[in-house]
């Protein structure tokens, strides 16, 4: 039987683009629980913009696979959360609908691109949210806002209905106050979907188990504590790893040399795919129309120039360039080689250790406008991007504070061992109590 959840929380951090004050729900493990859904995940009947003005007013006629699963689990979808336009950003400053602020300190960014989902959870508006992670977009805001966020193994969650930014890198994933909440949400959204040819039938049915940490071998890569990482953050994370050791784990040093090329490989791959993915936004079938009658190519150019934000236009141009004749071999093809190397490095290290631990972000949340040039912003992704290139699962769990701002411990595991990643995070979380 359908019931209604009245959702009256005040949105003081601009966490939502669309709020559903009267949210329907049914029976199931999540019956009556409000879940916030990132605005790049299609929801039938609810505006879905991916943070872009080019999709303003677009109401999908269908539900993303994960949204269907949420509904069958009884969840109430209370709104669509703010994000960097199409997921392109690390701060949620690039939203077409204004930035989201960090509930821990409103002068600081909440991280991105799933900043709205993180702020909605951190502020207590909801205790569960869906985010998407292309190069850290779940883990970064989870870390900055002091919540838990999991990027599942690539292929474990159907992407059907997720407005594509970079298809080969991104995954939908759960965000929540606690590891248990995140694990429970993961269980709901991981049911197999034949619509996504890149997904596998590997449902997650797991209850977090702190005992799994006993005898666990943890790799601690030098590159995660090197140049560019705030020493105070590094210290907090080393302390966290110490706690896991005290719970029975063994930490060993390791190296991931290919990380030197990870950021470049990531940005070439994601901008290339994005330049193609975003071609469909032409004003013909959805989104606002300019209303002026022109030749079609003038019309396309006009609406894209007007409605796409600056960062999006920048990335489309970068990707278009990288795929151009004469440059493909230099950029896209090389990026795929670098990517294969990163994957091989992770597989090698993870054949020797069970999980890899390090900071989620090199520093705590920065202030609005602090990273005004794109390159310094891109550099903030250095520790999250490798897991997307390798396709392995990674979680961020809060591990103390620096300057009163939360720090995230990142735990990375083997392909399809999301369970062990969750268990390790759970052991850490419980070990502090």
């Amino acid at each position, binding site marked *: 039987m359908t019931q209604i959840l009245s959702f009256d929380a005040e949105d003081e951090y601009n966490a939502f683009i669309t709020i559903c004050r009267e949210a329907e729900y049914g029976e199931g493990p999540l019956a009556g629980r409000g879940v916030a859904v990132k605005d790049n995940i299609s929801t039938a009947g609810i505006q879905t913009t991916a943070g872009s003005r080019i999709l303003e007013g677009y109401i999908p006629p269908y539900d993303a696979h994960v949204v269907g699963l949420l509904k069958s689990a009884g969840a109430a979808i209370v709104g669509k959360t703010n994000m960097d336009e199409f997921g392109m950003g690390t701060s949620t400053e690039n939203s077409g609908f204004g930035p989201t602020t960090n509930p821990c300190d409103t002068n600081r960014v909440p991280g991105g691109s799933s900043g709205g989902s993180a702020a909605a959870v951190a502020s207590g508006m909801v205790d569960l949210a869906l985010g998407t992670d292309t190069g850290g977009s779940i883990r970064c805001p989870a870390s900055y806002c002091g919540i838990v966020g999991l990027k599942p193994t690539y292929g474990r969650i159907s992407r059907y209905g997720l407005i594509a930014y970079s298809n080969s890198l991104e995954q939908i994933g759960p965000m929540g106050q606690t590891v248990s909440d995140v694990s429970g949400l993961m269980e709901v959204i991981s049911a197999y979907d*034949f619509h996504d*040819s890149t997904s596998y039938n590997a449902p997650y049915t797991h209850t977090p188990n702190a005992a799994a940490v006993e005898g666990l071998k943890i790799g601690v890569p030098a590159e995660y504590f090197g140049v560019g990482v705030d020493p105070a953050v590094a210290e907090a994370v080393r302390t966290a790893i110490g706690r896991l050791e005290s719970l029975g784990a063994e930490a060993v040093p390791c190296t991931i040399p290919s990380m030197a090329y990870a950021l470049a490989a990531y940005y070439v791959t994601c901008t290339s795919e994005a330049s*193609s993915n975003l*071609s469909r936004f032409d004003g013909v*079938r959805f989104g606002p129309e300019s209303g002026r009658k022109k030749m079609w*190519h003038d019309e396309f150019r006009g609406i894209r120039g007007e409605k796409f934000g600056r960062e999006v236009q920048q990335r489309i141009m970068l990707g278009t360039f990288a795929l151009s004749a004469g440059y493909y071999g230099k950029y896209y093809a090389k990026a795929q080689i670098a990517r294969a190397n990163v994957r091989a490095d992770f597989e090698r290290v993870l054949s020797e250790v069970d999980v890899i631990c390090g900071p989620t972000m090199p520093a705590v949340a920065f202030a609005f406008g602090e990273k005004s040039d794109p390159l310094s912003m891109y550099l903030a992704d250095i520790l999250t991007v490798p897991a997307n290139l390798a396709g392995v699962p990674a979680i961020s769990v809060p591990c103390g504070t620096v300057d009163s701002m939360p720090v995230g411990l990142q735990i990375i595991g083997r392909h399809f061992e999301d369970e062990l990643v969750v268990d390790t995070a759970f052991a850490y979380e419980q070990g502090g109590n």
Partner: protein
Amino acid sequence: MTEPENQVIIGLEIHCQLNTKTKLFCGCSNDYQNDEPNTHCCPVCLGLPGALPRLNKKAVESALKVCKALNLEILEECEFSRKNYFYPDLPKGYQVTMYDKPLGERGHLLVEDDEGHEKTIRITRIHLEEDPGRLVHKTGRDRAGYSLVDYNRSCVPLIEIVTEPDLRSPKEARRFLNKLRATLEYLDVFDGEREGSIRVDANISLKGHSRVECKNISSYKGVEKALNFEVTRQKNMLRRGAEIVMETRHFQEGKGITTSSRSKEKESDYRYFPEPDLRPLRVRDWVDTIELPELPDARRERFVKQYGISLNHARTLTGDIRVANFYEQVAGDQSVLCATLVSDTLLGELNYRSMKIADVPRDHFVDLMQLLAAGTITDRVGVDLLREFLDGSLEGATMARPSEIVTKRGLTKAGDDEFAEIMIRVIDANPQAVSDYQSGNAGAVNFLVGQVMKETRGRADPITLGALLKAQLEERET
């Protein structure tokens, strides 16, 4: 073999719609021909944000059948790529196609050249891709021209077949297409009668000169027309001392001409890259398990052996699977007569009326064949009766069977005595022709034969009649 100066050189790129039940990447029905625009659409084929392609296994199987039938080598790994370009009929802003890893490469198909010798046309590659939507251009009286988009066609599976430049005349190109069409129809992967099911780009050059690409040809006849036009145009240019420019030209079906693409089309950069939403295909083992049906060449050989008919008749009959099936269903114990009747008469009469073999009233045809086989009627009466029931069928009338008509109208072949009297009457009535014949003009007898045929309404056999008339005239002379 050395080729003459100005030898025509042609290569084709052929796009054929596969006749699968559903589209290439979604579950929408592929059978949209008679339906309203935009009624066979879903998030996937409309390119809605978030929708993902899911490959139709049947379409891959169909394409692999074609690869196997045309003797292609299947690649170890095949991969879909995105071809990026903007156009209002392309909902995603890219077409999912295959680029550097097609399904198969290096195949061939045998066709007859202009001298009737069998020759090998090499196939460069075959790949699978999605059709874009369709633009319908409107020019209103009360408003400026505008275009409508119909996405019913979007995502329909296409195979693209690329040949080497092995064709040497427009006629040969047409024969190649006919053979290809027959082969695809034998494989049951294609319906050549469906409107818009084939689209051809033709590359044509005169040996030693630049190549011209003719795009937008959407019929079998059109290909030959466009190529003939180009051969004439290019030869005329050379005759005038002008050089042929390498360019893309559009074929205008209605006018039968090609025109230079007005837009200053630069070499487009489609920015191909592997489609990240689909996984690569490994299909070699699968291809080995696919069994092919009997193909046109094999069926032709069988017809010659099994039915004792001529190679030419066998070729004509097996050139279209519908005709071959019709023949085998109706021939009975009259295989030779039936082959002649279908190849030499029926097909021409159908073509004249734009009718299909399926429109032939089968019982009437068999009845007619039996009348001819028994010698009950002459060939000429036979043709008249055939025309009569084809016309009737076209008008949807209920028609009496040929044998009933023959009885009713008394069209039975006349016996010798029956027209002896008519013959004498005709000879008596045409003294001029008789004297012409007697003064050595042997052809005059044909006039007399015609007169007798007229009197007997075609029921007499003209050859027998000629002999009898001659005998009669000779008798008179003496």
